[in-house]
């Protein structure tokens, strides 16, 4: 167990920010750390806390140090504070200060804006751990359980990264915000997490895979835009977080892919051609493809809501201030100011879903969302390859962005997955096909039986092609502590 009272911040907290000589941050972290450990200990069931998990730890930012694999008990995980190496003479990439040297200290005029962005990002990191806290109890394999815990500890480290920025650069306000990041709880009535999607429970593993594929990808896009920040410490922090985030999306993509793989195999083995022959498919203990489409619809649309309103003042302000850039800002070839430029967004005009031009500055969110959609489409294509290879006639699709929305111009409108306005009756009828029903949820839940034997997998999911850290198929990724 980590000795919270006598933490040696240079050995136990891997960092490249000179933590042990930064009195101000040390003092703040010493106060915050016990609350964090307490949060972690109360969160995940005790027997998992005591188990040895084969985890990757980042101990430094160089290629040799950022992925050290070993067995570790999660509460003893070394949550580090690691920033990508400083780029010499880095410049503010966008907005009215484009071309000026990047800020190494917080510019006073943007202090609040920066703080708000960091707090919102920081709030999502522990939130997903909270949402996923009970999943290990129904893990389909030790391999998957290990991946879940890897994602969890890294989200914990991401929280550390944001807390470090708050402690280092935002004084008393920053310390208070850092405390509140531990005070809010996903789904809590008392103090819920800031964004709606992070207050929903993750009830099963398919939801977890969908979440890591779609919702973590929103996180990735937010990090991408913060990685372009003119505030250099934020940019460096986010650049390093992105390396970890890639793994989370890998867990999601391969998780859904392996589920699809298993369904296709079982259909073939049993001579089922029609992917919609749900009863027969479900009787065989695998998840039918139409249900996977429904889950996809749900998680994709919830994630779109995280990008906010179509036309956003806050996003415009942040871009113009140089606090937040576009996806891969430095590779774009325009003037990085967007004055006078326009961007095409969806809107409703005279009862129809149409495209229109708006000032590009206020459409920053939408541009990022479009980049997100392109990024998300990649994995969907690879999933379809699996189906195609199996010779089954079915294609997964991303629904139209107007479908099933709670935020923006399409919020609560009667629109189908193709983006067409429909009647209330058609909507009610269609929803049975488009989104998972409670009965679908019951079915998935019925499959969620834990499989804790090394090398074994639940009925509904195929084993991975390669092991983590190239370990063999029967590797014991988690040495369970059974009290």
């Amino acid at each position, binding site marked *: 167990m980590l000795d919270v009272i006598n933490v040696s911040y240079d050995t136990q907290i891997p960092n490249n920010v000179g933590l042990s000589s930064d009195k101000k941050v040390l003092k703040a972290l010493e106060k915050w750390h016990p609350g964090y450990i307490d949060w972690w200990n109360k969160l995940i069931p005790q027997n998992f806390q005591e188990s040895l998990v084969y985890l990757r730890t980042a101990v430094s930012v160089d290629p040799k140090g950022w992925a050290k694999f070993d067995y570790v008990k999660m509460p003893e995980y070394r949550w580090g504070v690691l920033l990508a190496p400083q780029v010499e003479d880095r410049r503010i990439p966008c907005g*009215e200060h484009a071309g000026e040297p990047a800020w190494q200290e917080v510019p006073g005029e943007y202090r*609040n*804006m920066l*703080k*708000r962005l960091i707090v919102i990002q920081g709030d999502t990191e522990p939130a997903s751990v909270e949402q996923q806290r009970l999943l290990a109890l129904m893990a389909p394999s030790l391999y998957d359980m290990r991946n879940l815990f890897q994602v969890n500890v890294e989200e914990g480290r991401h929280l550390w990264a944001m807390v470090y920025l708050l402690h280092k650069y935002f004084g008393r306000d920053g310390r208070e915000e850092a405390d*509140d990041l531990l*005070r*809010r709880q996903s789904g809590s*009535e*008392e*103090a*819920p997490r*800031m964004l709606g999607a992070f207050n929903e429970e993750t009830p099963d593993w398919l939801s977890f895979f969908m979440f890591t594929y779609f919702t973590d990808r929103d996180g990735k896009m937010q990090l991408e835009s913060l990685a372009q920040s003119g505030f250099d410490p934020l940019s460096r922090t986010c650049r390093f977080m992105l390396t970890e985030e890639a793994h989370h999306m890998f867990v999601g993509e391969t998780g859904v892919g392996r589920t699809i793989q298993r369904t296709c195999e079982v259909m073939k083995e049993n001579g089922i051609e029609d992917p919609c022959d749900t009863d027969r498919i479900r009787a065989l203990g695998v998840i039918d493809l139409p249900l996977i489409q429904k889950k996809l619809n749900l998680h994709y649309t919830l994630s779109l809501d995280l990008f906010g309103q179509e036309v956003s*003042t806050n*996003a*415009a*302000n942040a*871009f*113009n*201030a140089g606090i937040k850039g576009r996806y891969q800002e430095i590779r774009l070839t325009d003037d990085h100011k*967007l*004055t006078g430029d326009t961007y095409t967004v969806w809107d409703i005009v005279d009862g129809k879903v149409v495209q229109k031009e708006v*000032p590009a*500055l*206020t459409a*920053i969110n939408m541009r990022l969302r479009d980049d997100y959609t392109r990024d998300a489409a990649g994995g969907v294509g690879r999933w379809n390859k699996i189906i195609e290879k199996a010779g089954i006639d079915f294609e997964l699709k991303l629904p139209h962005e107007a479908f099933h929305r709670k935020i923006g111009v399409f919020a609560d409108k009667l629109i189908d997955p193709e983006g067409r306005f429909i009647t209330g009756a058609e909507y009610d009828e269609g929803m049975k096909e488009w989104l998972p029903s409670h009965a679908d949820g019951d079915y998935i839940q019925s499959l969620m039986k834990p499989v804790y034997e090394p090398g074994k997998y639940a009925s509904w999911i195929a084993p991975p092609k390669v092991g983590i850290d190239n370990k063999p198929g029967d590797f014991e990724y988690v040495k369970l502590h059974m009290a």
Partner: protein
Amino acid sequence: MTEKMIDFQTDPSRYRHWRVEYDGPVATLYMDVDEDGGLFEGYQLKLNSYDLGVDIELSDIIQRMRFEHPEVKVVVMRSGKDNVFCAGANIRMLGGAAHSHKVNFCKFTNETRNTYEAAEADSGQKYIAAIKGSCAGGGYELALACNYIMLTDDSTSSVALPEVPLLAVLPGTGGLTRVTDKRQMRRDRADVFCAMEEGIRGKRAKEWKLVDEVVPNSRFDETVAERAREFAAASPRPDDATGIALTPLKREIGADAVTYSTVEVELDRKGRKATITVKGPEGDAPGDMEAFVAQGAEAWMLRAARELDDAILHLRLNEMELGLWVIRTEGDPAQVVAHEALLLANRDHWLANEVLQLWKRMLKRVDVTSRSLVALVEHGSCFAGALAELLFAVDRSYMMEDEFEGDNRPMATVTLSESNFGQYPMGNGLSRIATRFIGDEASVEAARATIGEVLEAEAADELGLVTYILDDIDWEDEIRIFMEERASFSPDALTGMEANLRFAGPETMETRIFGRLTAWQNWIFNRPNAVGPDGALQRYGSGVRGDYNLERV
């Protein structure tokens, strides 16, 4: 933006932005602004932001709360939306509005805030703000005007006055004044608070006196309900009174006139003046309060006040170029005194009190109206009691002296009642007579000694109750010359001059709001840093910040 006529009359069947749930002594007032329900084109009322239309409904609700729901002792104001209490005045509306509209909008919203703020002291109706979600700018000013502020402690909900850092304007609906004068926040902390965008939440909001109570989120509704019950139990309002219906005003709007049952407004666009004639009671005063209640909204004292109130608002917003209001009365002064006397004798009757309070508010509207005001005390007029108060609200008054040829109306007189000595105080807390004779107690006492006496021109002049008395020979010419001269002056200079001269005497929170705060706000509303093409208001939402002229003025 003012082409369309703005109507201040509405009723619950037409509300789009608020709803009220009545539960015995506690009413819950939900702000749930319809995004697409803006008064004008060109903006959406997102996040419970408001425009004049939203405020007109609020004003109607608080008026009805007083008259139609005497049983209500506590009003809980809260949001009908998740995550936001109220985002304040709509910025795009402000950015697109003419200067004159902004000024009038602020004035009306200030009057509305003052009205429900005073409801506790005036009639035992207490407003509680129950804040969940963000409560910024005009949103927090709505809460500040409540008598008790409760904030949930969900680690996200906050109160803020971000106008200065965000919009380059002031929290001008009483915000700057109430944090110091009412909440008694220390001025250095107020400086910190008013210069931060994100506001203050949780325990510190209480520590800094921004709210009265911070409540754990899970117990918020319960605690609000508990507080409402406690306050209701402590209210002096009657339990068993039944309200009266505020029936629609009888009003006809013509091209050159607006006609009510007791008020006639003639519009002289060429002469840039409006003549407002108030007609005294048609018959005897009701014998007692029971009879008065039976008359309800038809009772002259109530009807006249409501009609005058509407006429003032109508002229302010819809007839901005009519810079001079000529105020006349017609009727029997003895009847006016008698109708008022019934209410004065029954001040502790809830309805008598409400009607007198309405007169007080309506007369205050006159005080802060940016028009030159002149009263003509003609033969056949009835400047008595409550109507005599108009004489002391105007900038000047002219009174007919002696008989006029071919005019057989009763001689022009003025009659004071006890009400002129404190029943209808101005925003400065003094009666209009006391303000008129500031520092001259003897003149106040001399006037008081004439209560009930019918004063003809010479006596009124001697007591200093009118500006000039004029006989048949001079009357017409003098009045004409005065009006022509007035019409030739700069409307801005006149507004400034009049607003200064009207409020002699002490400052109160109210005079500070209408004088200091609004005057500075109106100045800022004219400055490029806020409203210029590169100013913060215009640029708000574009992502580009205001480009400021850095010279301090």
